[in-house]
């Protein structure tokens, strides 16, 4: 493994999270379009997806979306400002600070929904 620094890991994680989001989107569209076959199939599928495995998968996708969104803002700053590239490392740490601040309440709400249920 090439011993790159923050930028390399930011890129790898961005690419992996991007692919995961696309795969989720494909799955999601497939799920919704199953309603074409009538309520019987659609409801059965939704029932099947009540399994906590899917709930945890959703938490994982949400975690990846949050990283992809925040690092995307970092990339916009690097691409469109004269100072973004110079501060790329600090920006990456800022991404993780915001990630934790936004991610923890999200995690709490989602996990409660998965295991306790309700609104």
């Amino acid at each position, binding site marked *: 493994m090439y011993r*790159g620094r923050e930028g390399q890991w930011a*890129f790898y994680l961005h*690419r992996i999270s991007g692919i995961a989001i696309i795969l989720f989107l494909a799955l999601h569209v497939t799920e919704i379009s199953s309603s074409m076959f009538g309520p019987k199939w659609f409801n059965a599928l939704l029932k099947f997806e009540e399994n906590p495995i899917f709930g945890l998968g959703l938490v994982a996708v949400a975690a990846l979306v949050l990283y992809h969104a925040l690092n995307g803002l970092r990339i916009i700053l690097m691409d469109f400002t004269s100072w973004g590239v110079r501060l790329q490392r600090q920006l990456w740490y800022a991404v993780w600070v915001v990630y934790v601040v936004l991610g923890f309440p999200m995690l709490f709400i989602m996990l409660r929904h998965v295991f306790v249920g309700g609104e």
Partner: protein
Amino acid sequence: MQVTLKILRYNPEKDARPHWESYRLEAEPMDRVLDLLHQVKWEKDGTLAFRKSCGHGICGSDAMMINGVNRLACKTLVKDLGTDVITVEPIRGLPVEKDLVVDMEPFFEAYRAVKPWLINDEPPPERERLQSPEERAVFDEGTKCILCAACTTSCPVFWVNGTYLGPSAIVQAHRFIFDSRDKGAHERFPALGSTGGVWRCRTAYNCTEACPREIPVTQLIEEVKRAIMFGQM
């Protein structure tokens, strides 16, 4: 001090694939990795192949992957590695010819693609083409490049893409695009704006970290991106 030098060896006439070989060497902390390679070649195994020329960080011949990072063997001191196990591999993304020697032709092909020479059809003035110190400073960083390929072969996109020009060629393009005497931007933009051009850069910064001349490579690539996008030229 005793060090272990692990080299990824490959002899195309004998080996199916590269393999590691270890050498126990007596080294001084101020020895360069290049000195260790010489010690192996001169005293232990004369078949070891690697490229070097000036040995002083100017010719750009001896870029290699040392302890997982691209560096020049002649500018890397044993003491700076902070370990007594030193691994040396050929730079990645170019075909290995033997041991640490790679075929640099794809690298130079990308270099030629950006037309790295002055393009200006205007009749030459009676004396030199004048330039202010401020105009000169704009492209100063790119002039430091020694074409060692440490940046290009540290790039994750270059390893897998196959068409990407690579950081070094873009740095060379930057050196001329931002030169006030040069009028060739429109001739260079087709190669730079194509699918193998600047848009393949995903800002992983390995190039910037690897450059032995401390050129802010990613910064220059981003400037070329903006020049193309906003039609600055």
